[in-house]
């Protein structure tokens, strides 16, 4: 059967081209996602600053929580966990240890700053000058030999510079003072390599030292796992849908040949095997080429993510054969599934059809398909309800993609019924082309149904992908617009004291953004200085009050309060960004959690537990010019500009999901081109009886336009439902926000693509002389 399948494929290249392209793209996408996933799982960053220390003792960067059932879960902390300096003394006494080096790390004017004590970790050596001794002295790395550090005197230059960080050294005491954490250090280097076990710190060796040096790489890794998984899963589902569609269409087009085979000698099983053989054969070829291309795609994706700042430069992509192999297997499985689904239809082809004169259209919607359609529809409704109850973006985003997909599958399954219902409407398009189109649509509802599948998929997926961040962003935007009552917003780095001294300033609020975990669940945190808070921001307090905010008080958003089941006066145990536990008392519940943050904590509680303590400052009163004069080098924005800048950066999602949109577009082109070129005989016949080229093209245009209009309506409906559910869960309001221009663009692109994918093959088909086209057998 395989050799027979191979022959058929060779002969019917055009018919299989669609499935081939779809499988190729699927393999490429799955490979690329697999590479991201694998990098997330196994990626490592080589240590730079800790390269010279065989063992590095540092804090456990995970918050761990043991559930009642004894299972322990760990989540990555957002900020660095510092460790007590006394550990160093303990380790010094351990057998075999010859040297112990302590280190503090903190950001300083764009540099990563340390005390000279930790130079030996790399090791850094001096190329010129001397080590910093006094408080006002610094040593810079080799790349910055000419740099000026305001307020400090450069006394030495190191012989080295690290590839992905700019280093500056203060005297040990000055560094401790600037870092501002009494009795704590970021890491302790131990020489030589010995087994060290201490309480309160973990020992890292080899590449694991890189993970404590570059916490952002660790964050990116976790992000890559979820992104790669979601993207790969979505593209695989889309692939099965697209490939099943193209297979079904190609089988429909060779119904007659298959019926003849059935009549002559082939059992239904043999036909199924033939179709399966064809599917496996092309998927092996397409999968292999696609997986190769996918490696390039993965490299390109990583480059984009680095450019967008989502992945650090030094987190290299893990390149191994596994993603390509997995993609190949996934492609085979997708093709096989698609073939199995299509083969159900083939088994129903009656051999008698080969003998009848007319090519019979498939009889009514088979019951199994209707049942499946209704079941999937029920699944879509259930997912929509689930989505409306999800309030965490990490869960909500993939579920919204899945919801849109499942709705689309329901539409595809029930497509013939929908097509029949719509074509039964007494609508008329003027002209001969319109008349023919109307008749064709009514007679060929199967073809219409096959075409609306990918078009609906494209509209639904594109709108959902583009407008779910927009829906969220729009809601956050509106809360910020209403909630920021300050006149100016200063970027991080401004000294709050200096601001308060500036003329005309009535109040200045320092705002620090970080995260905290409550039973491992992550919540956004804004830490604010309470003085004059009522003049700079209005959180929309619904219960309790912010009067006397400070110490261990906290305010929570209504969404978070509902999720946690807490109210004013309740005590809340949380883990701060660096893993320090804290207990706070809820003073107020507020409405604008989306624009600001789910948790509002006092600045003093949080400031010592973030890596970068520089705060944004909200200023009430004062003149912009005066502020700029008083604070040289600090960006001053007015309220509107600040609110604008506050919206989340969705570029990463757009890049990743853009690939899926591209895939859907390929499916659209595929299906329409296949559907149109299969009609060359019919078109030739129409020309023989006197239809002009213009009329034929008009007819095809009208048919496609009707299909596109129907699909856009369905797709829009699907995405509106999905976005409404997404919005209801995330923002509490079920109003989706499709950016008007963006939406028009989606519709225009879908329709234009559909028309082009019809017109080009139609022109090809019309190029042959009608008599020749008619003479040529199927």
């Amino acid at each position: 059967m395989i050799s027979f399948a191979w022959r058929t494929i060779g002969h019917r290249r055009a018919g299989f081209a669609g499935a081939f392209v779809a499988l190729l793209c699927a393999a490429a996408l799955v490979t690329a996602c697999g590479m991201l996933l694998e990098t997330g799982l196994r990626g490592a960053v080589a240590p730079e600053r800790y390269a010279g220390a065989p063992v590095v003792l540092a804090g456990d960067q995970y918050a761990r929580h043991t559930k009642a059932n004894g299972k322990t879960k760990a989540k990555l902390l957002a900020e660095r966990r510092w460790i007590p300096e006394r550990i160093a003394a303990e380790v010094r006494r351990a057998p075999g240890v010859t040297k112990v080096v302590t280190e503090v790390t903190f950001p300083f004017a764009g540099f990563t700053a340390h005390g000279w004590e930790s130079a030996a970790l790399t090791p850094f050596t001096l190329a010129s000058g001397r080590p910093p001794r006094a408080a006002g002295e610094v040593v810079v790395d080799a790349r910055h030999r000419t740099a000026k550090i305001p307020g400090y005197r450069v006394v030495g230059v190191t012989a080295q510079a690290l590839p992905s960080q700019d280093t500056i050294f203060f005297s040990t005491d000055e560094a401790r003072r600037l870092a501002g954490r009494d009795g704590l250090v970021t890491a302790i280097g131990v020489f030589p390599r010995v087994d060290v076990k201490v309480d309160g710190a973990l020992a890292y060796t080899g590449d694991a030292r890189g993970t404590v040096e570059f916490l952002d790489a660790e964050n990116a890794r976790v992000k890559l796992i979820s992104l790669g998984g979601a993207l790969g899963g979505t593209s695989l589902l889309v692939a099965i849908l697209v490939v099943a569609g193209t297979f079904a269409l190609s089988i429909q087009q060779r119904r007659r040949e298959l019926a003849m085979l059935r009549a002559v000698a082939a059992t239904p099983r043999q036909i199924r095997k033939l179709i399966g053989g064809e599917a496996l054969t092309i998927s092996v070829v397409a999968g292999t080429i696609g997986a190769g291309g996918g490696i390039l795609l993965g490299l390109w994706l990583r480059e984009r993510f680095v450019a967008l700042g989502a992945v650090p430069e030094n987190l290299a992509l893990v390149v191994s054969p596994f993603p390509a192999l997995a993609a190949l297997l996934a492609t085979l499985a997708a093709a096989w599934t698609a073939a199995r689904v299509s083969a159900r239809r083939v088994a129903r082809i009656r051999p008698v059809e080969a003998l009848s004169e007319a090519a019979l259209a498939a009889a009514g919607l088979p019951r199994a398909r209707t049942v499946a359609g209704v079941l999937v529809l029920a699944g879509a409704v259930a997912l929509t309800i689930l989505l409306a109850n999800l309030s965490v973006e990490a869960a909500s985003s993939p579920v919204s993609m899945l919801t849109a997909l499942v709705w689309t599958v329901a539409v595809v399954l029930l497509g013939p019924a929908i097509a029949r219902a719509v074509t039964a409407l007494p609508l008329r398009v003027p002209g001969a082309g319109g008349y023919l189109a109307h008749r064709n649509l009514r007679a060929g509802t199967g073809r219409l149904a096959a075409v609306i599948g990918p078009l609906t998929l494209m509209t639904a997926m594109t709108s959902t992908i583009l407008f779910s961040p927009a829906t969220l962003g729009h809601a956050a935007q509106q809360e910020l617009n209403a909630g920021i009552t300050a006149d100016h917003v200063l970027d991080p780095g401004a000294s709050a004291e200096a601001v308060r001294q500036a003329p005309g300033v009535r109040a200045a609020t320092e705002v620090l953004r970080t995260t905290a975990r409550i039973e491992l669940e992550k919540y956004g945190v804004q830490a604010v200085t309470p003085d004059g808070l009522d003049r700079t921001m209005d959180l929309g307090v619904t219960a309790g009050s912010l009067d006397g905010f400070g110490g261990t008080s906290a305010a929570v958003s209504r969404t978070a309060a509902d999720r946690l089941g807490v109210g004013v006066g309740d005590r809340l145990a949380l883990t701060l960004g660096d893993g320090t536990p804290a207990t706070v008392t809820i003073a107020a519940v507020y409405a604008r959690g989306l624009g600001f943050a789910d948790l509002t904590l006092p600045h003093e509680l949080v400031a010592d537990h973030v890596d970068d303590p520089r705060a944004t400052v909200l200023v009430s009163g004062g003149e912009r010019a005066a502020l700029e004069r008083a604070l040289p080098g600090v960006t001053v924005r007015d309220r509107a500009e600040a609110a604008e800048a506050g919206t989340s950066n969705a570029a990463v999602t757009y890049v990743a999901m853009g690939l899926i949109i591209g895939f859907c577009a390929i499916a659209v082109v595929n299906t329409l081109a296949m559907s149109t070129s299969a009609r060359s005989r019919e078109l030739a016949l129409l020309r023989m009886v006197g239809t002009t080229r213009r009329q034929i093209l008009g007819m095809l245009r009208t048919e496609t336009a009707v299909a596109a209009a129907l699909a856009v309506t369905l797709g829009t409906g699907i995405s509106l439902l999905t976005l409404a559910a997404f919005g209801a869960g995330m923002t509490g309001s079920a109003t989706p926000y499709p950016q008007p221009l963006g939406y028009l663009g989606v519709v225009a692109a879908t329709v234009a693509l559909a028309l082009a994918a019809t017109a080009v093959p139609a022109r090809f088909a019309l190029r042959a002389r009608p008599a020749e086209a008619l003479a040529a057998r199927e």
Partner: protein
Amino acid sequence: MTEVVRLNAVSKVYGKGHGAVAALREVSVGIPAGTFTAIMGPSGSGKSTFLHCAAGLDLPTSGSVRLGGTELAGMNETQLTELRRKRVGFVFQAFNLVGSLTVTENITLPLTLAGVRPDPAWLAEIVRRVGLDGRAGHRPAQLSGGQQQRVAIARALVTRPEVVFGDEPTGALDTMTARDVLVLLREVVSGLGQTVVMVTHDPVAASYADTVLFLADGRIVDSMSAPAADKVAERMTRLGAWT
């Protein structure tokens, strides 16, 4: 004389309830071995349904069909296929061949599907008999309509079936080519002793047969031995007048 095909009180009804249409009504007939039988009748007389039921492509609503002594009732689709593969050959009006296969591969297709090696001597014999020498490696698209029908006839013969069914095998051919194909079918009966049953609406085609069965309104209404084209045409005209 043994009968290759035997139909006893065969009825075929399409649809259910008020919309039901009886295509065959209580038809009983036997086809003797080694004969060439033509089935004729006006449109809607049930001649295609007769062929489908007799050849095991379709099962009758009631009655019994025996093919070479095997009762078809109660067989499932796979069993029917295997039976057709071994005992029946088909020649259709058009769309007879698989475009991706060569002439030889098309001819041996039933054997390939059955997993049986073709007998080279027999294959060479039928290729010669249908006049396709030197074309074994061609693709169907490189052949004329008449040649394609010859390939189909060769394919119908390759399994040494008990009976070959033709459904308007000359319907898509011009007069001269049709004549060649009919001569070939006649020769297959006379020379190889093959049984052939052919549905046609063409009195000239029917005149090549030993016997013509006339169907009207789902019943066999007449038969004619050693038919001549003008007699058959006259009979058909009268049939047409009745309906």
